[in-house]
């Protein structure tokens, strides 16, 4: 089985593709059958992926030397692209995680989407989405990866806009697509630059040649440019500042989609890609600092927004942005293992929280404002308690998963700072503050939704088993998934690392700090939102500092700024160009047309209709041409005159 899985790794993405095609072309009219096909394929894919992961992680050879096979895809003189499979621990982990979350989400969807008129189509999209992501993960070639990357973007567009009758969903889908497009464009440029400069797009070959860029005649400046361009793709895809705006709006899609997009697939693709290309970024120290800075800033920035949001999924969305910032920060300080570790744990607890939130919304018939909820834990015990587990995990309470990964990130940031990077202290401060805020806003959400007095929610009841089962599985995973990366037995960093395996000593002080921050956040949330039944303190705080509150609640007016930018600057520029087009370009064209028409008007009078005039002109022309041509050929007339 393991042997088979390793040799046929391409089956992992292929199975969901097949189920997508089957659903779209064959089983679409039969909703239950379609979901069964999708789940069956996904299950097969998951089994393959897990045996593959098992094979990789138990075999040290694969950890040091990635499994790589490829075949020629397309090529011409001086340009060959191979398509292939690259399995190293990172991709094995991703395969396992993505297929698991996708499977759980699909099972969950059978309950959540029940009765939807486009039920089959939803499963088809989910399958395609999972397939794209799995394909992205195992791609051995940047061009191949880019195609899957775009497929992921396409699927996210389709799924976010799944409720096509909702204007806001359509707008959100467009927003997601266009925003990520901006980044993809930069990334494509980066890929093209890489192909031009290094003449290969194969990841392993690139990893081999890029450290020698100087010998290959590539200047550091150019490499920096490539790295920054390349980074644009992940910035957009992983919702980093300033291209994060699409991500909260993506909540317009069905909740399982949010879980899939925000936990396991699309958004972590960016992190994964940067992790894959870390060999490029480490060559350009400046670009790594940019990555770290953007990550740290995004983490804090999104956390401060999440503090005041009212919609349950929006809070989670900003939480995702913030956590992705953590991952970027970890990459920026050069620790692939910390970043992917957080990616791994985050996938489980964030998927858990999204699915639980979906369960809540399902019960409340899509009333999303957390201020209108309360005391739900008594009516929805499974949803409530699993959410609490997720909350503990994200807040970083040991021994839940989030604690270990967050601690790892704090640790590597601290070490980065201590190794002579003054900015590192700033990053550390950002990260620590974010940890506090994360605990606060998640527990604010939990206290508001699940505890406190019950609001008038009449027919609230627990969701069906198809929805609670994935919750339970994910809750268990959120509890234990971090245990493979504890500082004492850090299996994780022996598996997944960039450069030398990092195994820092357990930094107890840091752990203590992290726990204290988390507890402080939870405590503050408890005081403001649970103990205080009327939430007087919270309201008065908002009243007292309206500027701060509004800044946070309005998401720092980023959307408004973009709107202003597009309305005024882009539209204004477009207007100028429009006028240019109307008056200059069209003017030239219309002028030419008018010239043609006018000259035609004038010349038509030559068309007298008098046959003899035509003949006259004809013979005149004969005469003139004869004379002209003969004069031309060296005075032929004179020559003719001299012939005897």
């Amino acid at each position, binding site marked *: 089985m393991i042997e088979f899985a390793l040799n046929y790794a391409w089956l992992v993405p292929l199975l969901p593709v097949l189920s997508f095609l089957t659903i779209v072309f064959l089983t679409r009219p039969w909703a239950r059958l379609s979901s069964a096909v999708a789940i069956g394929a996904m299950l097969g894919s998951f089994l393959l992926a897990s045996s593959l992961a098992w094979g990789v992680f138990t075999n040290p050879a694969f950890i040091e030397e990635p499994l790589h096979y490829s075949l020629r895809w397309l090529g011409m003189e001086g340009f060959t692209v191979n398509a292939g499979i690259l399995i190293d621990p990172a991709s094995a982990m991703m395969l396992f995680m993505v297929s698991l979350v996708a499977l759980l989400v699909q099972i969950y969807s059978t309950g959540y989407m029940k009765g939807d008129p486009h039920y089959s189509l939803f499963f088809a999209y989910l399958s395609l989405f999972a397939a794209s992501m799995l394909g992205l993960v195992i791609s051995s070639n940047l061009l191949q990866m880019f195609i899957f990357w775009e497929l992921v973007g396409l699927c996210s567009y389709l799924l976010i806009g799944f409720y096509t009758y909702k204007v806001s969903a359509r707008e959100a889908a467009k927003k997601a697509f266009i925003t990520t497009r901006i980044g993809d464009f930069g990334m494509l440029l980066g890929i093209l630059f890489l192909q031009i400069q290094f003449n290969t797009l194969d990841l392993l070959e690139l990893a081999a040649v890029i450290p020698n860029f100087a010998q290959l005649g590539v200047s550091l400046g150019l490499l920096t440019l490539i790295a920054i361009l390349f980074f644009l793709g992940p910035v957009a895809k992983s919702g980093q500042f300033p291209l994060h705006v699409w991500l909260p709006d993506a909540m317009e899609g069905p909740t399982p989609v949010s879980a899939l997009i925000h936990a396991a697939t699309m958004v972590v693709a960016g992190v994964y890609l940067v992790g894959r290309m870390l060999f490029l970024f480490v060559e350009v120290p400046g670009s790594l600092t940019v990555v770290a800075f953007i990550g740290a800033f995004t983490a804090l920035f999104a956390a401060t927004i999440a503090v005041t949001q009212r919609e349950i999924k929006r809070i989670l969305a900003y939480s995702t942005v913030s956590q992705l910032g953590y991952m970027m920060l970890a990459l920026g300080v050069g620790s692939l293992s910390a970043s992917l570790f957080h990616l791994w744990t985050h996938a489980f607890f964030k998927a858990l929280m999204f699915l639980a939130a979906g369960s809540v919304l399902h019960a409340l018939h899509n009333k999303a404002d957390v201020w209108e909820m309360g005391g739900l834990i008594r009516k929805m015990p499974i949803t409530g308690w699993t959410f609490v587990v997720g909350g503990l995990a994200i807040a970083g309470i040991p021994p839940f998963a989030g604690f270990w990964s967050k601690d790892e990130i704090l640790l590597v940031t601290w070490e980065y700072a201590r190794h002579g990077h003054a900015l590192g202290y700033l990053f550390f401060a950002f990260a620590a503050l974010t940890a506090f805020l994360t605990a606060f806003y998640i527990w604010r959400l939990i206290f508001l939704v699940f505890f406190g007095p019950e609001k008038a929610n009449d027919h609230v009841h627990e969701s069906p088993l198809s929805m609670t089962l994935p919750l339970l599985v994910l809750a268990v995973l959120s509890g234990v998934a971090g245990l493979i990366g504890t500082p004492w037995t850090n299996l994780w960093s022996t598996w997944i690392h960039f450069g030398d395996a990092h195994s820092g000593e357990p930094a107890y002080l840091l752990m203590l700090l992290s726990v204290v921050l988390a507890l402080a956040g939870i405590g503050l949330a408890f005081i403001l939102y649970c103990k205080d039944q009327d939430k007087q303190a919270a309201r008065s705080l908002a009243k007292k500092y309206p500027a701060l509150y509004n800044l946070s609640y309005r998401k720092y007016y980023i959307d408004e700024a973009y709107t202003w930018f597009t309305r005024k600057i882009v539209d204004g520029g477009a207007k100028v160009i429009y006028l240019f087009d109307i008056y200059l370009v069209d003017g030239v064209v219309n002028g030419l047309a008018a010239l043609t028409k006018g000259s035609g008007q004038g010349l038509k009078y030559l068309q007298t209709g008098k046959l*003899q*005039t035509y003949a*006259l002109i004809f*013979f*005149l022309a*004969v*005469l003139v041409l*004869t*004379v002209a041509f003969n004069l031309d050929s060296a005075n032929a*007339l004179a020559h*003719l*005159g001299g*012939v*005897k």
Partner: protein
Amino acid sequence: MKQLQGCADMENSLELIAFFLLAGSLLTGALMVVTLKNLVNSVLSLIVVFFSLAGIFILLNADFLAAVQVLVYAGGVCIMLVFGVMLVQRKDMRESNPVNRRFLIAAPLTGALFLLIGLVAAKSPWVKEAGEVPENTIEHLAPILLRDYVIPFEAVAILLTVALTGVLLLVKEVKDNGRSS
């Protein structure tokens, strides 16, 4: 031998004289055709032209062609033209063949064209082929026309039929307008 030479000289001079006479009448007739004010007179001078043309053909050893020329042109075409003129021109014939203003350009133009062609023709070094045109051309023409050129011959026959039909269609109201060819 000398007598023979003299005989050839004699023949040459006779030919030359004949040529100039014929050319003179031909060109005079042609000029009259285009300058006379009366259309009937023009057509009559055209007959002179055609006869002179026939003479030129005889000079060029093309006696069959000369006969055809006289039969078809002088006999057929001119009569047809006269009938045409009479059918069309019902008023006074005196100013029936006017010249339009274009002649101001046409006259110098044609003069220049004549000069050009004449100059080129006169100065061209003609290389004569050895051999003479046989007497009795008709005996030689007939096999060529009916063997080598039989398809054009038949095509022309069809053309004539079609033309005849077309002409009849065009002038249906008038039955007897002197169609002869």
